[in-house]
């Protein structure tokens, strides 16, 4: 027997204390999001005079991170970020199609008869066509013509407000994208400084390196959800971040992201840091990608389809009107006929769009100028041209049909975005749960470890007491 037993027991005390430290750190962080549990890696120490060895030590306190699960959680959260931002933007934007009763207008509870409900464009179009028939029935009536002008004005106003709602959706989405990009920039900067701090901590051997790695991981998770960034960690602990193949953070230098262009030509660019020149970042997942998709594809295509509705309305009505004649002054026996004039024009002078469509001021100031008649020979009470305009309501390539197609297109886009949102959110939460189950703190496991370390500590203490008592009895025998 030698003094070795005391040394070995002491190393057991030390090791179990470090183990207890790890357990207590874990339990304290059981509810910290993104916290990765630590494990004290026990190892036996070789050496010493005999074959026994010289006790136990904690070779390292390692993080229970699971690369595969973390990567999966990041990928799915990037997809969920894409789907949820796209779905949110589109859901907001589709409120422009208010052809259906909204929650704010309390409709009658049971559906007794129909409701050509809402103040949507379809209802305005129907009222417009119906007013044309009234003019056709009473071409000599100023009241019929005036109410047609009124419903035309409402129709034009509705197109204007729909167009401006879509524009403001575009503007606010662009603002949201800029905000996301500036958050990302801040995180890229933090990550670069963490990379430096990790290297310093490792070099100096000072404590807290694990906490720094956890912060790196948390930032990487955020970046994945925001711009679909992927990461890799070098053996030195420095984390590299890239998105769409463009390296954004390498060691201590971080690139700066920016938004360039507007509307359909919006892109996310990166410059500085590891990049030698300004580069377009092909963001394909993450919240920013969802916003980009809405900005560059969905919203512009809705706007274009709405413009097409307006220009088709203007073209078909104007063509029919210019084929007819109007009689002026209205109701006068000396009225003379003139070739019909257009009803819709563009306020910009260019192509008619939903934003630029306006009524011909000549027709507004004198409703007699509405060409209700087919020809000069049929007389002022002929309303057949007005009826022909009214019949445009049923045209399969007319404004109504185009608008209905637009509602269907937008509805499908929003529906699939919402479906993708719920599917990807589920996948992301399940991947996150797996990662957190694997890396997070399992209270029972920690308590079991606590018991182990406690017993180990007590046992080592017992060895020291026993050795001490053996020495003293030996000394008593000798003296």
């Amino acid at each position, binding site marked *: 027997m030698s003094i070795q037993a005391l040394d070995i027991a002491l190393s057991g005390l030390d090791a179990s204390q470090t183990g207890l430290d790890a357990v207590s750190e874990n339990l304290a962080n059981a509810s910290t999001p993104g916290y990765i549990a630590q494990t004290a890696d026990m190892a036996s120490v070789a050496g010493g005079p005999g074959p026994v060895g010289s006790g136990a030590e904690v070779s390292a306190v390692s993080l229970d991170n699971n690369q595969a699960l973390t990567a999966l959680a990041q990928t799915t959260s990037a997809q969920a970020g894409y789907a949820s931002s796209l779905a949110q933007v589109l859901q907001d934007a589709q409120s422009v*199609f208010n052809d259906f009763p909204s929650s704010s207008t309390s409709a009658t509870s049971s559906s007794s008869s129909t409701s050509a409900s809402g103040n949507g464009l379809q209802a305005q179009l129907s009222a417009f066509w119906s007013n044309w028939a009234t003019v056709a029935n009473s071409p000599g009536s100023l009241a019929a013509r005036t109410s047609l002008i009124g419903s035309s004005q409402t129709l034009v106003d509705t197109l204007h407000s729909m167009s401006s709602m879509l524009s403001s959706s575009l503007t606010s989405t662009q603002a949201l994208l800029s905000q996301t990009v500036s958050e990302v920039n801040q995180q890229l900067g933090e990550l670069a400084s963490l990379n430096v701090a990790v290297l310093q901590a490792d070099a100096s051997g000072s404590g807290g390196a694990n906490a720094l790695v956890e912060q790196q991981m948390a930032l990487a998770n955020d970046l994945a959800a925001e711009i679909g960034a992927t990461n890799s960690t070098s053996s030195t602990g420095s984390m590299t971040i890239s998105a769409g193949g463009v390296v954004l953070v390498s060691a201590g230098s971080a690139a700066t992201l920016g938004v360039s262009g507007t509307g359909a030509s919006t892109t996310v660019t990166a410059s500085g840091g590891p990049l030698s020149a300004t580069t377009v970042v092909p963001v394909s997942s993450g919240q920013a990608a969802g916003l980009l998709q809405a900005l560059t594809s969905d919203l512009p295509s809705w706007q274009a389809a709405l413009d097409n509705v307006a220009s088709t309305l203007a073209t078909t009505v104007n063509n029919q009107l210019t084929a007819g004649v109007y009689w002026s002054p209205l*109701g006068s026996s000396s009225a003379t006929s003139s070739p019909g004039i257009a009803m819709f024009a563009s306020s910009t002078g260019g192509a008619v769009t939903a934003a630029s469509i306006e009524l011909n001021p000549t027709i507004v100031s004198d409703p007699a100028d509405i060409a209700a008649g087919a020809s000069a020979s049929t007389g002022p009470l002929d309303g057949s041209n007005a009826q022909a305009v009214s019949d445009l309501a049923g045209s399969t390539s007319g404004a109504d049909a185009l608008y209905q197609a637009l*509602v269907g297109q937008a509805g499908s886009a929003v529906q699939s975005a919402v479906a993708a949102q719920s599917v990807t959110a589920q996948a992301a939460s399940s991947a996150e749960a797996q990662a957190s189950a694997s890396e997070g703190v399992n209270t029972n496991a920690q308590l079991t470890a606590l018991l182990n370390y406690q017993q180990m500590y007590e046992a080592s203490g017992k060895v020291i007491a026993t050795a001490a008592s053996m020495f003293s009895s030996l000394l008593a025998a000798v003296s």
Partner: protein
Amino acid sequence: MSAVLPATTLAFSGELLGSIDAGEVNAQQLQQQLSTGSAIISPSDDPTGAVDALAAQAASSQASTWATNASDGLSRLGLANSVLNQVLGQISELQQSVQSVSSANFSPAGMAALAQQVQGIGQSILANANTSYEGYALFGGTSGVTEAYSSAGAYLGNNVVPTRTVGPGTQLPAGASGSSVFGSGASGLFGVINQTVADLQAGNTNAVLSTDLPAINSWYDQVQASAAQVGAYYDQMQAALEQAQSTAQTLADQASNITAVNLPKVATELSLQNSTLQSALYALAQVVPPSLLQYLP
């Protein structure tokens, strides 16, 4: 949640929270459907149904327009019909007066009185032929004149019969032009009446009986034929009105069937959703899972 991996408190509560959120969104949608009575609140709720409902609403509105057209035509035709029947009575009155020339020996004074009577009847018929509808002559075609005939019996309107569109590509006549009913000029009804008056005033009994009376008789038949024609138009228009109305109603029902909420179904789903939500909430309240901690001294 993967059964293989041990549960951590965070993962457990995160999953529960997710399912509570999903449940609340679902319940909110159901409540919105109940409160609006519409299963489609925004196009994304059912894109196909939304398009169908819009198309049905538009078609229903167009059918309503046709019904309005038909009912406008009906009121024109109804007025024309009653005017023509009145005119028929007046012409037969005219026939009787003119016929009386043959039965008795008339003094020149009597002839003059008869001529005056015939002229009076003729003016009543002219007044009927000049009936105005919405400020314009009913029998003036589409010319926009306020009187269809001049006092001399010349037709002032045109020969275009106004029509009403009552269906896809279906136009029905909504009246009759004056010239086809009463003729125009010397050969027209008013020309014949004026001639009769002139012959009576001249005491030309022979001409009255041999030329004027047969001409009046023939105009009676023509006006009768026109009245029958207008009556037939009226029936057609009536049928078209009923058809357009029923089409409009059917399409409106169709639109509301697409958007209407199945109340019992939604109410059941909502109560089911509420109980699911409550159990999820209860589970969340119990989320501190049984742990070893409870059994340690």
